[in-house]
């Protein structure tokens, strides 16, 4: 018998927990170079076996040999030294590390890594077909090169804090009928969403339940025109609704952003039948999540994702990033270019074959927006699902202004949240400064002055956003070139003011509240992290320019979603 011993040899292993037999006289061997998968129903003992091999449990009977050497006195560290690593499905992943790095952890902790690990059974939540590639990479095998091609997509992919939870696939939404009701519903929801916002951010816990509640409230359908059964609210109302929710949790406020922008694209560019179909679905409670931006295209407005006619319908292929809301959407609206390089929105079922959404968002702010990658591999969509959105940019339309207005509303909400947080903290927790001569921090003359300054800027941003919302209302049915330009300028002004106050208020919060406001337990830095992250969507330095160019030279701002 001169053949090499198996890399892993499990012989007659048994394990019981107080009479419950997990493993009974189990034997198998894994030769070098072989991938062994272990499958079985819940409770079959898969995890128990891995825990025995890994040194977490000690077997009641039997013997394990690793690379020819008996594995006595097993401990996880001892196993690691021999090159045995273990990756957990959910509750022991290293957050903020990529899928690949999680897989490779077992190797990195070994003091002298062996050339291979005996068993690696990464129960990853990645699309099927990639686990093998990861295992191969984990084993450091040169044969992994081909398989790892697929893995490059996951190199930067962060582990979700939990596996993607399920969500209601057949929702039923309340029907909101007026502006006043929309605002009242938003306020009620915001009170609920505010609780837990800090924890969700800290733990990066995706707000699935909150999201379900949000869209079930009917707020995701309020801009559907009255003629299609919606409330057709003023865009000033929409801005207030988004700001109100964002003040409680700006990730939640941001998630419907692209859904709402898509509704306006459908309103402007969709056929009558498409409007009836999609507005109807949205009023029922369906959520749209976007797959619009691409990470590697030349600039934000360039697309490499393609839409090609195929049979009765179309196929869409490409890779998307920053796909806010797609993770928990019922439908994903995909920006894709046809042969003539015109941008369409192709609305695909979230569960369509070839469409994969990965929770890969690793931003330091807006952490729970359910943004991520969307991989599109020949995703089929019907003709009813392809909206010629390019029309909304070619002709003057409300599309760009609607998109920007919602962006600004999220920032306004962040500012409102930070402002309220500052007042609450200074009133109840801050100590008076030594030089103030006051009993209470809130009587410090400079603190009062500072709050006064914030209030002025906050209310200016609010007033400007309301103005911009009314300007949008006026171009919905009559989008003349001049009025669309004026509206874009109005929205840009609001965007500048909301950006400035969001960042200022989030900063001043700590200055006025004092050092105790930086303690991790309160997680108050989330306001600044959220403000700084979300305000990068489109940089305000170009807003000043577009506003100035319109005022000075009569040049209309460009017509796209970022202006």
């Amino acid at each position, binding site marked *: 018998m001169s053949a090499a011993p198996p890399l892993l040899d499990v012989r007659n292993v048994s394990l019981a927990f107080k009479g419950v037999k997990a493993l009974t006289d189990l034997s198998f061997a894994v030769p070098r170079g072989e991938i062994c998968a272990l499958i079985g129903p819940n409770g079959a003992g898969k995890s128990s076996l891995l825990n025995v091999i890994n040194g977490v449990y000690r077997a009641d009977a039997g013997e394990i040999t690793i690379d020819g050497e008996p594995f006595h006195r097993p401990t996880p560290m001892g196993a690691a030294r021999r090159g045995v690593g273990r990756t957990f499905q959910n509750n022991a992943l290293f957050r903020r590390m990529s899928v690949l790095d999680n897989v490779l952890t077992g190797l990195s902790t070994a003091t002298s890594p062996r050339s291979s690990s005996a068993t690696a059974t990464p129960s990853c939540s990645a699309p099927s077909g990639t686990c093998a590639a990861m295992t191969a990479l984990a084993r450091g095998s040169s044969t992994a090169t081909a398989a790892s091609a697929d893995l490059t997509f996951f190199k930067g992919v962060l582990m979700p804090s939990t596996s993607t939870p399920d969500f209601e696939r057949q929702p039923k939404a309340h029907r909101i009928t007026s502006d006043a009701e929309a605002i009242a519903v938003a306020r009620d929801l915001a009170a609920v969403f505010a609780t837990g916002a800090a924890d969700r951010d800290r733990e990066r816990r995706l707000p699935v339940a909150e999201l379900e509640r949000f869209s079930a409230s009917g707020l995701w359908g309020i801009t559907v025109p009255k003629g299609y059964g919606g409330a057709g609210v003023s865009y000033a109302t929409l801005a207030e609704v988004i700001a109100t929710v964002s003040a409680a949790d700006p990730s939640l406020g941001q998630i419907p952003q692209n859904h709402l922008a898509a509704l306006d694209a459908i309103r402007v560019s969709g056929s009558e039948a498409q409007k009836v179909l999609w507005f109807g679905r949205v009023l029922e409670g369906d959520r749209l999540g976007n797959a619009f931006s691409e990470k590697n295209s030349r600039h934000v407005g360039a697309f490499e994702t393609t839409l090609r006619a195929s049979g009765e319908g179309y196929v869409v292929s490409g890779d998307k990033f920053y796909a806010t809301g797609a993770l928990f959407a019922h439908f994903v609206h995909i920006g894709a270019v046809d042969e003539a390089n015109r941008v369409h929105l192709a609305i695909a079922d979230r569960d369509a074959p070839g469409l994969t959404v990965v929770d890969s968002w690793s931003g330091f702010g807006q952490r729970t927006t359910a943004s991520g990658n969307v991989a599109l591999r020949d995703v089929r969509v019907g003709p009813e699902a392809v909206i010629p959105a390019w029309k909304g940019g070619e002709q003057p339309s409300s599309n760009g202004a609607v998109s920007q207005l919602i962006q600004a509303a999220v920032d306004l909400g962040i500012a409102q949240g930070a402002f309220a947080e500052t007042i609450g903290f200074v009133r109840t927790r801050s100590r008076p400064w030594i030089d103030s001569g006051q009993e209470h921090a*809130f*009587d410090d003359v400079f*603190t009062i002055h500072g*709050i*006064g300054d914030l209030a002025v800027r906050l209310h200016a941003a609010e007033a400007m956003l309301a103005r911009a919302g009314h300007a949008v209302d006026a171009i919905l049915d009559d989008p003349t070139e001049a009025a669309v330009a004026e509206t874009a300028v109005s929205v840009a*002004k609001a965007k500048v003011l909301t950006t400035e106050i969001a960042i200022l208020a989030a900063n001043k919060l700590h200055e006025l509240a004092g050092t105790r406001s930086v303690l991790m337990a309160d997680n108050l830095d989330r306001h600044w992290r959220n403000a700084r992250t979300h305000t990068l969507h489109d940089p305000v330095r170009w807003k000043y320019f577009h*506003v100035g160019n319109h*005022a*000075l*030279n009569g040049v209309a701002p460009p017509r796209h979603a970022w202006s």
Partner: protein
Amino acid sequence: MSTAFTQKLDPESVAFDPPPVRSRPAYRIRDDAEALAVAREVAAELALGAVRRDRERILPYEELERISDTGLLAITVPAEFGGAGVSAGTVARVIATLAGADGSLGQIPQNHFFLLEGLRLSGTEAQKRFFYNRILAGERIFNALSERGTKTAQDHVTRLTRAGDGFALNGRKFYSTGVLFAHWIGVVANDDAGESTLSFVPATAPGVTVIDDWTGFGQRTTGSGTTVLDDVAVAPFSVIPFKRIFDVPTGMGPFAQIMHAAVEQGIAEAALATAIHFVRHHTRPWKESGVDRASDDPYIVSAVGEMSIRTDAAGALLERAGGFVDAARAAPDEGNVAAASVAVAEAKVATTEAALFASTKLIELAGSSATLQEHGLDRFWRNARTHTVHDPVRWKYKVIGDYWLNGRNPPRHGAI
């Protein structure tokens, strides 16, 4: 005026001998929209001579007559007395529009409307009927409020004392904006009981001397001067109880203030418009920009954008404040008057900043040639700086902060 006086003296029973009514016809403005349109029209006309009036300090007598003719000075007369009874937001916009043409002309109507608001809140039916008719005829009433040398700007030593069947006024008032152009002078004085009163005295009354002594570097032609009151006989009919305007919550304070903010807003808007015009027609491109026209310099374009944003932000706050002021004027209570004062203070902070910013930035963007005397472009900053010290914004921040942080209402007086 104390209650004792009003009971003893029946205003109608004592001789009241007013001067003849203004003879030029005045147009009757019907509503808010018309007020705004008329203001735009007359402002365009009045803008033409603004540089020269400022440079040579030519007092705008004829211009004020023109404004009177348009009916703009009567727009706050309530509908039941034949006026348009426009909103506070409209008043603010009208003032901003006039101030955009000429900062001084924008400021002059401020205390005219302020005094009319005092009449609306505290005048008797007969007083309202009489004075509103005069106002609808285009007459102007300007103030004699401030005094110099008192401990704070709100203290008064001018006295209204009993004299025969009526009263006598004695004192000296400074910074009496518009008084040189007045048909009537609204004089604030303490009565024998030490309570604040407001008398509407004909500018032509014996004992009234108006001295043109305003030497400020900005708002040069506001006709602000010193009013000397030497034993001026005042009929009881002319006396309006003033103190109670601030004893109970009224919209008087925020109404007064929103008009001040509007003056600054008008200056900011005019500085922006002037910057755009100057850059387009006069400014040479900077060498490093590599562009043929200054208006294509990306930094200039962007700076104009910032001026526009700051100016419009202030304008939006002013408009927002108008809604609060109207709510407080319609049914004043502790809460809505405080909210209005705070909203107006917020607008005042923003308009102050915008006016100073735009008037300074104008010169930077326009370039060295913009400093030449003939353009008079420095008038925007001189006007903004002068007008914005009327009541310092540093204490506005305090009032605003105290309201939002501590839930404390602002004090009630004419400057908040």
